[in-house]
């Protein structure tokens, strides 16, 4: 009887996955369509924005899978079909998002159409150096199949217990202790090979479609060619990230047959490669020479984007370094202290430093505003125009900050039995320190001068956008800090990351650009 339920379970999982994919596809489609059809911006800007969102969604969707499920023996054990689906997941999401991207491409057609007479080859817009890096990663990933195939299977040493859950699906499901085992390399190697092949095939097919696709009629042939390069750059970076992930997972799995240093070196190598791929930005298509002149608003927007780019990059790198250092401290903690002691050591290091990183984020952002202020000259004399964000934004932010503070003070509210890892004094110092820094930042952003000749509406937008981004980081930090120390609660981390990714345009409406050149700017 239970065997019947066991055979039905993969089917239920597949139908549940299909439903999730359908819902996710609809949301992605609607979002990309709205980006492509946004009114008030040029076709080139919309095409660039569409390409960016497509690559970003593809990155998050394709790297969200956990490859360790391919080899781990857990209860209930994964069926072979599920393992194949997990192996194909990354390539599947990559293809799905890019295919949706092709159907949402801003394909407006004018009566006058432009085409280049230069035959389009597959190699012209192809980023060769990036392609070579991704090719090397693919070769390395393939080479990892050999050590993988030599790994022997391992059955966990935990005791099997029988649970009597009310839900018939989970009835008499054996549960294992935390030490889970893994299946043998002979079974895992084909799955890894399938995963690598699927990612490379998906990339090759999408590349061919990008190169052969119909050009956008609203922009010139040169810009179309540059857009193809941008699409290919982002696709290859996504592919590179996926291959890096696969290599990282392969090294973790093949740990028993590799020497002990591999895991540690690979962790830093994966981070370094991820960083290289992150900063390998494409060259943006330049507007036509006869297009509208650069406006004060455009310069101001470019400034805010630079602030965001530098400050966010700093924050991400700092968080990774702190996380790695904390993991190292936890590993080095002597055994007699136990797991709770090791976690307390990690937390006492990670939390204050992470809070310091948030404060530094605010300092960097304020530093950019100070640079703009110093260049303002005449602008410094005029009264700064500022306005509060909508009340609901402050209300929600206050709720998030309050919830995060409670989680920091009393982690047992989240998971019963959890212990307070930091002294209340340190926790109070972290909370007060970040709030005071944020208050100072908000005051400065509302009072600094701007060097551009902006309308009142645009100046308010500039201050609001900086304020919202800082508020976003602050709320995110209040969930990531307790999430980092209580690793049993991924939901808290997910909320923190989700808050960090909220786009500002949901809250602050972008003002219309004024076609003027400034004498001050």
């Amino acid at each position: 009887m239970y065997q019947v339920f066991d055979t039905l379970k993969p089917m239920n999982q597949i139908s549940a996955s299909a439903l999730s994919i359908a819902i996710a596809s609809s949301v992605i489609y609607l979002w990309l369509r709205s980006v492509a059809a946004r009114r008030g911006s040029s076709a080139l800007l919309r095409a660039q924005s569409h390409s960016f969102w497509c690559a970003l969604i593809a990155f998050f969707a394709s790297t969200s899978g956990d490859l360790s499920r391919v080899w781990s023996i857990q209860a209930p054990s994964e069926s072979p079909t599920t393992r194949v689906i997990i192996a194909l997941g990354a390539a599947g999401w990559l293809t799905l998002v890019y295919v949706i991207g092709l159907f949402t491409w801003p394909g407006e057609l004018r009566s006058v159409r432009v085409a280049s007479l230069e035959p389009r080859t597959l190699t012209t817009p192809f980023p060769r150096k990036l392609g070579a890096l991704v090719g090397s990663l693919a070769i390395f990933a393939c080479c990892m199949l050999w050590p993988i195939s030599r790994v022997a299977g391992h059955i966990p040493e935990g005791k099997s217990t029988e649970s009597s859950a009310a839900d018939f699906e989970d009835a008499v499901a054996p549960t294992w202790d935390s030490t889970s085992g893994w299946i043998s390399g002979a079974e895992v190697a084909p799955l890894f090979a399938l995963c690598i092949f699927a990612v490379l095939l998906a990339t090759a097919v999408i590349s061919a479609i990008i190169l052969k696709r119909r050009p956008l009629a609203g922009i010139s042939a040169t810009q179309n060619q540059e857009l193809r390069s941008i699409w290919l750059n982002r696709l290859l970076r996504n592919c590179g990230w996926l291959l890096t992930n696969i290599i990282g997972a392969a090294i973790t799995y093949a740990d028993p047959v590799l020497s002990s240093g591999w895991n540690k070196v690979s962790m830093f190598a994966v981070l370094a490669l991820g960083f290289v791929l992150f900063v390998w930005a494409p060259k943006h298509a330049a507007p036509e020479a006869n297009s509208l002149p650069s406006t004060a608003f455009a310069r101001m927007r470019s400034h805010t984007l630079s602030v965001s780019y530098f400050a966010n990059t700093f924050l991400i790198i700092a968080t990774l370094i702190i996380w790695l250092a904390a993991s190292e401290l936890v590993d080095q903690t002597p055994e007699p202290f136990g797991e709770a002691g090791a976690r307390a050591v990690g937390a006492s290091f990670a939390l204050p430093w992470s809070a310091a990183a948030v404060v530094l984020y605010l300092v960097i952002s304020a530093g950019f505003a100070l640079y703009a202020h110093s260049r303002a000259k005449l602008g410094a004399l005029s009264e700064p125009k500022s306005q509060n964000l909508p009340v609901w934004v402050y209300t929600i932010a206050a709720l998030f900050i309050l919830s995060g503070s409670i989680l920091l003070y009393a982690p047992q509210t989240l998971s019963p039995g959890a212990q307070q890892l930091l002294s209340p004094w340190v926790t109070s110092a972290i909370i007060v320190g970040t709030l005071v820094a944020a208050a100072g930042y908000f005051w400065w952003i509302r009072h600094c001068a701007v060097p551009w000749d902006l309308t009142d509406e645009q100046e308010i937008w500039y201050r609001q956008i900086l304020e919202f981004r800082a508020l976003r980081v602050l709320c995110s930090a209040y969930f990531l800090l307790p999430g980092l120390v209580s690793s049993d609660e991924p939901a808290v981390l997910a909320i923190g990351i989700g808050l960090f990714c909220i786009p500002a345009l949901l809250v602050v409406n972008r003002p219309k650009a004024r076609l003027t050149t400034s004498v001050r700017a």
Partner: protein
Amino acid sequence: MSTQITVDLEAATAPYEQIRSQIASLINLGELVAGSKLPTVRALATDLGVAAGTVARAYKELEAEGLISSRRRAGTIVNERATPIEEHEDLVAAVDHLWKLAAAQHVDAATLKALVARRER
């Protein structure tokens, strides 16, 4: 050097003729040199958003004029011109003179082009 062509679907001139005349001009002016390869009928039709038959007809007429030749393997290639347009010294000198006159009388390039186009009718 620009090797771009445009097609105005609302213009009085048929799309195939617009394609033909622009490619012919580019070849005559030497911007498409002998031996250079043109895009396939299907690729150019896709890029311009017109039917493949429209581009095929333009290519056929260019081939009849001896400006291009289609080969099974090599694709569509620009032919060698007997006398490049730059070698018609009298014509080039007349155009230079016309250009100077137009500049002196503040006539822009578009108006000048329209004046020349009138002669075609």
